[in-house]
């Protein structure tokens, strides 16, 4: 009887564990089912390498390149801003700040993570965009750069909290060992603590990027939504996510446009999947 109960509970837990994987697989199949339907009428190469996205033109153009570059530029910009800031912030919280300030800062960073993205979009639209416009004397402030700055604020909490965990997890003994050999505080941070925490640092950056690339609302509000290939970061762009959100409501179910948005979603899914895999691999490398 007892054995039966044991095995029942085990099966139940197993089922729960498998469920999450099942969901991912189902979501992917659902995406793929409608996404692949596009390629009955549009050639795969036209989709992947087409440089025009204009679903309303005659004939409609479904080239993902401008959207992909838009996402890439915003993500790259946000990463370039958030990673150095995040690393410095995590090191300060984990290593340098006195204890009372540490708790205070950690709470602050977590609060930053709790700000709804629409609020960040709102602030970006009303404050950041005019600032960028003025700073570079542009015709419009709704640019990839404004979006990158706003997204950096969303990536920083993810980066800081995971990285700070990684830094705190470095055994105290490493610090003492290094200090006892006459190393300074900075030498200890740079030569011992950061290398020892490197896998967590890589994972935090990857997850931060994952957060940025999937973000929709704020970028839709701030980046200007022009589906053209950007030449510089000071031009309006449109990301893959914003495209789906903006156009889904106007499509006819079963039309090429509808399928094309699913195909874009599929590309997005594959990108975030790859990023998560890299983060995971980095975390596991250390555990060995």
């Amino acid at each position, binding site marked *: 009887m007892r054995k039966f109960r044991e095995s029942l509970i085990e099966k139940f837990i197993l089922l729960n564990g498998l469920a999450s994987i099942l969901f991912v697989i189902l979501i992917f199949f659902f995406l793929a089912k409608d996404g692949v339907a596009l390629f009955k009428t549009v050639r795969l190469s036209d989709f992947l390498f087409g440089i025009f996205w204009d679903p309303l033109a005659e004939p409609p153009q479904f080239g993902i390149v401008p959207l992909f570059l838009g996402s890439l530029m915003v993500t790259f910009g946000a990463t370039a801003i958030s990673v150095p800031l995040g690393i410095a912030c995590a090191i300060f919280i984990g290593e340098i700040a*006195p*204890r009372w300030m540490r708790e205070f800062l950690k709470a602050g960073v977590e609060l930053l993570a709790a700000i709804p993205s629409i609020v960040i979009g709102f602030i970006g639209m009303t404050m950041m965009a005019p600032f960028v416009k003025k700073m570079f004397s542009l015709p419009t402030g709704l640019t990839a750069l404004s979006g990158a700055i706003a997204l950096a604020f969303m990536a920083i909490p993810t980066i800081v909290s995971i990285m700070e965990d990684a830094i705190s997890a470095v*055994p105290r*003994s*490493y*610090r*003492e*060992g*290094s*200090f*006892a*050999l*006459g*190393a*300074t505080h900075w*030498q200890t941070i740079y*030569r*011992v603590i950061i*290398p*020892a925490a490197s896998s967590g640092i890589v994972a935090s950056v990857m997850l931060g990027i994952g957060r940025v690339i999937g973000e929709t609302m704020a970028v839709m509000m701030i980046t200007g939504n022009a589906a053209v290939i950007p030449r510089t970061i000071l031009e309006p762009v449109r990301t893959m996510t914003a495209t789906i959100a903006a156009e889904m409501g106007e499509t006819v179910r079963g039309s090429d446009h509808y399928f094309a948005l699913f195909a874009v979603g599929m590309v997005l899914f594959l990108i975030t999947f790859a990023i998560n895999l890299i983060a995971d691999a980095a975390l596991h490398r250390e555990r060995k």
Partner: protein
Amino acid sequence: MVNPGTEKIVAEDLNIYYGPLHVLKNVTLSVRNHEILGIIGPANSGKTSFLKALNRLNDLNPNCRMSGSIRIDGKDINREMDAEDIRKRVAMVFALPLPLPMSIFDNIAYGPRRHGIKNRKELERIAEKSLRSAFLWDEVKDRLTGSAMKLSGGQQQRLCIARTLAVDPEVILYDEPCSGLDPISTAKVEEAMFELKARYTQILVTNNVKQAARVGERVAFFLMGELVEADDAKKIFTAPNDKRTEDYITGRFG
């Protein structure tokens, strides 16, 4: 150059507090050049706190306060020297062997590199010399680039000693260096300490009274934060002045 027997380190009226805890009470103790001073005493008697005061590792603990003075060659370590300088001159080997997560060679080179030695040949020379002094060279010479974490416990502890020697200190502090080691590894560590006597002043904190008797020339007995007595090892182990010392070494408490 140095006269064995003259005073190397003098601690005077040393008091240490961790927050509200008074862990070291009015300790006055001197350490002579090139001697091995054994420090014995039960847990929480202030042995490690005393040791960490000598190279200012207590500075890392924000709750720690101290009063009194510690002088090395006449210079006050808290008022007249940088923490990094004092830690280079007074190096420490910890209770648990704690190699840094890098190769054997990099562990040894870590200290010298931090003090400005970049030349690869010079680092290799230092590494070999330190590893030989710690009786580890023959065991690791073929795998210097391998991870230090893969060594056995005894080898790791001797690596830590070698790493300490590589910064060319004057004084070596050992904080229960053999508490996690088997008897054979312990014997090797003790052998290394004897060998190093010619060049270094050494202080050994140990829970193991027999080890203090084997290795120490002079022995200090700490109890509840007080220095009960410090004398030649022979005297301590045959005719101690204080009843409490006798009780401790004969195993009546602690």
